[in-house]
């Protein structure tokens, strides 16, 4: 398996960083263009799924262990819910972002709030997608050639 699929492995190496970069662009540009946390999380996961397809799931598990993913899943959700609790502690409603920056004349609080919750969404979605991939793909070590 090591020396096979040379072109695929090189292409994966070329594409990996741009895919992550695109995911970050979609993540933090969601209030200006199409996209947001859900799409960015999926694109982020796709980079690692591609890595798992070419190098095998075991190599990807070393690069990004399941333990980290489990923490990412919880932290993302807590980030979202925590933003809601933060706005309540600041005296507003749950997820009423205007209290984050009440003096702003152009609703900067809304921008901060949207960025924060979208970040939580992206983290949870990315970690969940990679987790599901690990658990499905990890059950059979390798795709045999006659299966195609």
């Amino acid at each position, binding site marked *: 398996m090591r020396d096979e699929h040379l072109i695929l492995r090189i292409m994966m190496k070329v594409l990996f960083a741009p895919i992550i970069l695109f995911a970050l662009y*979609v993540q933090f540009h*969601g*209030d*200006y*263009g*199409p*996209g*947001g946390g*859900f*799409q960015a999380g*999926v*694109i982020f*996961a*796709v980079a690692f*799924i591609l890595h798992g*397809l070419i190098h095998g799931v075991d190599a990807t598990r070393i690069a990004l262990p*399941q333990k980290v993913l*489990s923490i990412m*899943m*919880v932290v*993302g*959700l807590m980030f*979202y*819910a925590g933003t*809601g609790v933060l706005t309540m502690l600041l005296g507003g409603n*749950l*997820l009423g*972002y205007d209290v984050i920056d009440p003096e702003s004349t*152009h*609703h900067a609080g*809304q*921008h901060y*709030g*949207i960025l924060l*919750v*979208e970040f*939580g*969404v992206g983290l*949870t*979605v990315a*970690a*969940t*997608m990679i*987790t*599901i*991939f*690990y*658990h*499905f*793909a*990890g*059950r*059979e*070590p390798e*795709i045999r050639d006659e*299966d*195609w």
Partner: protein
Amino acid sequence: MTVSPEFSAGAVAAIELALLTLLFVVALQMLKSRHLFAVVMLSGIYSLLSAAFFVSLDAVDVAFTEAAVGAGVSTMLMLSAMLLTARREKPVTPGRAPVALIAVLIVGAALVYASIDMPAFGDANSPANAYVGQAYVERTPNEIAVPNIVTAVLASYRGFDTLGETMVIFTAGLAVMLLLGAGAPRGGREVKDVDDADNGKGGNT
């Protein structure tokens, strides 16, 4: 280069017709094929075609999601799920049950009948565009000041909904981890539940 509005409208209509025809052909092929690998690939193509169709309906956010989730990740997950089961669908004897045929015909006729009453595409007075939708479009620039109204609705106006959606995804990941054995010492791997000689049944033993 200037293009007359009639020409561009006609071109858009032609593209939409082509996309819908392709969707129909792909769906028929998915029904016909018994080879699961082909079906998974066709479902990816179906998602990609739907994404293209959503773009032509100006629903860019939905198209983006469909392309990333439908064509990308679900195809991948279906492929890895396919590895755990047989490669070919079991041939079913086409028992021409008249009840099923009648049910399909009645539901199909009802759907066609309902489509007559549907508002025209882009109709400003249709219920979807008139009440809440119009309020969001009018209020977003003053209340949220975010250019993408979809994001404003998703993350701010309906932030609580999206919190629930995130929880759904979290729960789905948790369920997969529990079902496929993340906490087990074997780490969800090396489960010999399918005998190589008999690739048919994927049940746990």
